[in-house]
Each structure stands twice: as structure tokens, then as C-alpha cells.
């Protein structure tokens, strides 16, 4: 059995899905992030001055791009996989000789493609507001790739457990959004009191946003080594959990 063809098929299906409904999947992030740039960047940002040694608008750009990548990677897999369960077309893959890792890789790959594509769109939109610097392109590529993989895996696990469409909006609303807002997108965690700086250390999004910001601006609240260690830990853990769940057929097989 040629697993690369099966992987390509799942990936193609996933990309076709979000491209078919591009008005729902690609346009809203561009509009939302434009609003962030206008309100937090131009209007409020101009009164804030500098943050971390750079002007506020430049400071928030990497965080806003990362926020779009995180949200879209997660929601793409969560909604697509749950829809496949709900419409039962996930059975098309379950009855076929597709190894479980191919199913996981296909869906996660689809989520990463949407996350990164939205990230590119948001980056292009941000060029209308600010001149983007590139400090280290490889750190940018590595961070965005690994972060989108992490949240695509999270979306997959959410969809496996979800029993209704409500269940795939609970985690983004009550966990993902607060963690993102508290993840240093709009501020440097060095501004926080010591206690809250410590609390921020357990928020994985802090590491992702700061590593990404380092790629653009060369500044970070955390070390790159610890950032990549945290991201790798989450990828390995979430991939293992996803594989166990699919192998056992949780939420998929009776």
C-alpha cells in the first residue's frame, strides 16, 4: 500500500475543503487582524510609544500573525474532523487500509496549510500598516511550522472527543483565546509583576509568540532553546495522545 498517495489524498481533501469555503476560512482572519492593527496599533499604539525597544505597532505584528496561525490551525482540524465524524465520511478512511499515522498527519497537515496560509495573508495585510523587519527567517519558519502543527494536533484531539458542534467551540473560547491574549501578543511579559511573570511561564503560547517575535525583531522574553523545547514537548505529547485515541477508535468506532 502506497501511504504517500493516501497522505496526499487526505491533504488534498483538506486543502480543497478550506479553499472551497475561502470566504469563511481566509477572509475573516484578514479582516479581524486589520481591525487589531487599526485599533491597537494605529489608534492606541501611537499613544503607547515603544515596547521592548521597538515601536508598539512593530511589537504586536508577530504576535498577531501567530494568533491567526494558532486559531486557524486549530479550528480547521477541529471543524473538519468533527464534520467528517458527524457526516460519517470519516468512515471512508477507517474502512480503507490507511495507517493511523497517515490520518493524523493528513488532517494536521491540512490544518497547518490553512494556518500558514492565513499567516501569510495577515503578514501581507500588516505590510499596509508597518515595515516588517526580518531578523532570522529560519526561526520564523521553524516557529510557525511547529506552532501550527501543535495547534492542529490540539484541534484534532478536540474533534475526536467532541460530541456536538458546541464542543468544538468550547476549548477555543474558554482556553485558547485567554491563553493567546495572555501569551504576550500585546505586551512584553517583563512588564508584569514577578508573580504573573512566573505564571506566564506555564503558558505555552508565550514561548511560541516570543520565538516568532525573535525571528522578526531579534527580541524575546524567553530563550529560544526553552521555546523550541516547549513546542517540541507539546508536539510529541499531543501526537502520542492523538495516535492512541485513533488507534483505540475513541469517538470513531463503537
Amino acid at each position, binding site marked *: *500500500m502506497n501511504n504517500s498517495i*493516501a497522505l*496526499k489524498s487526505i491533504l488534498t481533501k483538506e486543502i480543497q475543503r478550506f479553499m472551497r469555503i475561502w470566504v469563511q476560512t481566509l477572509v475573516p482572519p484578514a479582516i479581524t487582524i486589520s481591525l487589531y492593527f487599526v485599533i491597537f496599533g494605529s489608534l492606541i499604539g501611537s499613544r503607547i510609544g515603544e515596547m521592548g525597544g521597538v515601536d508598539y505597532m512593530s511589537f504586536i505584528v508577530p504576535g498577531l500573525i501567530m494568533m491567526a496561525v494558532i486559531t486557524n490551525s486549530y479550528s480547521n482540524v477541529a471543524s473538519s474532523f468533527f464534520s467528517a465524524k458527524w457526516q460519517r465520511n470519516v*468512515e471512508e478512511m477507517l*474502512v*480503507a487500509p490507511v495507517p493511523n499515522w497517515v490520518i493524523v498527519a493528513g488532517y494536521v497537515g491540512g490544518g497547518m496549510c490553512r494556518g500558514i496560509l492565513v499567516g501569510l495573508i495577515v503578514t501581507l495585510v500588516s505590510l499596509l500598516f508597518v515595515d516588517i523587519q526580518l531578523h532570522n527567517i529560519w526561526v520564523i519558519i521553524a516557529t510557525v511550522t511547529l506552532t501550527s502543527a501543535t495547534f492542529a494536533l490540539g484541534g484534532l484531539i478536540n474533534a475526536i472527543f467532541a460530541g456536538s458542534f458546541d464542543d468544538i467551540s468550547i476549548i477555543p473560547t474558554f482556553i485558547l483565546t485567554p491563553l493567546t491574549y495572555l501569551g504576550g501578543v500585546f505586551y512584553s511579559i517583563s512588564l508584569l509583576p514577578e508573580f504573573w511573570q512566573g505564571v506566564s511561564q506555564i503558558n505555552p503560547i508565550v514561548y511560541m509568540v516570543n520565538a516568532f517575535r525573535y525571528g522578526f525583531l531579534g527580541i524575546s522574553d524567553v530563550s529560544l532553546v526553552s521555546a523550541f523545547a516547549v513546542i517540541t514537548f507539546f508536539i510529541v505529547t499531543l501526537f502520542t495522545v492523538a495516535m492512541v485515541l485513533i488507534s483505540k477508535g475513541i469517538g470513531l*468506532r*463503537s
Partner: protein
Amino acid sequence: MTYALEISALEKTYKGGFQALKGIDLTVKQGDFFALLGPNGAGKSTSIGVITSLVNKTGGQVKVFGYDIDTDLEKAKSFIGLVPQEFNFSQFEPLIHILVNQAGYYGVTKKIALERAEKYLKQLELWDKRDEPARTLSGGMKRRLMIARALMHEPQILILDEPTAGVDIELRRSMWSFLQELNQQGITIILTTHYLEEAETLCRNIAIIDGGEIVEDTSMKKLLAQLDLETFVFDLQDNTTIATLTQFVAQSPTMTYRVIDDHTLEVDLNKSQNLNDIFKQLSAANIEVLSMRNKSNRLEALFVSLINKKSNAAVATQQSAVVGAN
């Protein structure tokens, strides 16, 4: 003898404690056209679910062309094409994408998949709809789409779970001839259906499942040979009257006639009687027959009697248990 499917002591108990399969044994030969019949909730779909790995079994063994689903699951899956009872494709995808992606899951290249998609969509009269989203299809078209999808990797076994449910008679018959062609090409077909005429017309071997147990597993010919009574309906010439027919029935004690109306007569015929005697009696009474038909589906009568036999046996066991306890 090569077996397409070998099932032994298969058990499935769902989480709530419901035992859907109670240790069934079944074999299907390569090239067979096999019917799996049973009332609702008998265990047909659970059996198919286990064979296709959509349901986790709790005991027993399943082999597909000799490959055990516990040890060679992917190999076993590669032989099977499934047409499930419920529509289970993405309603938003165009037909051509559904078929090409499905073939891809089995490792079929896009070029070959496109050729096969064209072949099957044309054979099943769906080619004009290839770029339409699946939700725009009628019920019958959706059923045909699922058959096309199941064939995309050219399986050795095609399992159809009530493939003609809700399909009009004309379309049903065209699907029958399509399935017969596939079977003639060597594909083993396993069919569950509620249309017993369908099973009688298409299948060579049959198993009847009820309450998670196989109550009959034999050839269609042997099963039908068990039937000792058939009912024929005679449509008569316009010149007959109720009075004539009533008098005729009263004078023919050897046959079980029933007068339906002034132009219709029914008769039950067992194996020791023959149709010639009936025609002779009708002719002697100057009753002319316009046409004759078999009233009930023969398999249906047998099916009902087999299921009833099992239910009666269960009730008797329960009663004796109660008596014993008292």
C-alpha cells in the same frame, strides 16, 4: 476451497451491555453472491461493522481471504469494498473528488482513479453530475454514488448493507443487473436487504441472523426447498360470478380454494399437489383463467417462519425456566 470470508465465534457486546452478536460462525466462498438476512436489530450491520473494522469486536475471529483482521488488518481491508446503509460521504464535495480521494486512500494513483471514476460514474449514470456537490443528488443517485465509491479500488469482496432501500423498482432492477455483472466478473458479493425478493433473485447462498445468532446458513435452493406451501392467484374471465365460484369451491374439497371476488380465485398448493389438477377442475366447471401469479414471496414466508420458530423456542425456554423456578 478459497474463502472470501471466515467468521468464527464472533461476539460483540456494546458498552451498555447489549450483546449484538452471540458467537456467530459464517463462511462465504470466493465468487459467491451471499445474502445476510435478519429483522431490524438482528446483528447484520454490527457483523458488517466488525468485518470492515468500524465496530470493535469483543470476541472471535474474522478472516478476509485468509488475512486475520487482528494481525493483518490493513491487508484484510484492502480486499473489501463497503456500501453502507446510511449515506456517509461529504455532502459538500463534488462526486469526482469523493471518488478520487477514496481511491487514494487505497493507494490508487490519481490518473488511474480518474479513469475508474469515469468508468463507474458512466456505468451508474452519474457522469453528468461529476462536478456537482453530493448533496444535490437524489436518494437513488446517492446510493449509486456509494456503489461507485466502493468499487474505486477494485475490491475482491463487495459488502452492501441494504443498497436498494428507498430506491424505486426500476432503478432497483438496474442495480440488480449491475451487481450480477460484477459477480460474474468474480467479485464476491455479500448483501443484506429487507427486500427478500432481492435476495431470492440475486443470491446463491444465504444466512439468516436473529438476536445475534445465525438461525439458518444454507444455499438458497435448499432453503426454498423447505417451503411446502405456495399460494397462486387466478384472474378469471368476466363471465364468472360469485355464485359460480362459491359453488365450485364447495364442490372441490381436495383443494384449498378461496374466492376473493367475482373474478379472482386463490388456491394454496402443497408439494403433493400439482397445477394440472387445478386447471382440469377449473376447465370442468367452465371457468376460464386469464392469468395466474404467485401470491407471496416464497422467501418471505420462510423467513417469517424461521424467525417465529426462534421466538417461540425462546418463549418456551423462558416458560419452562419459570415453571422450574416455581
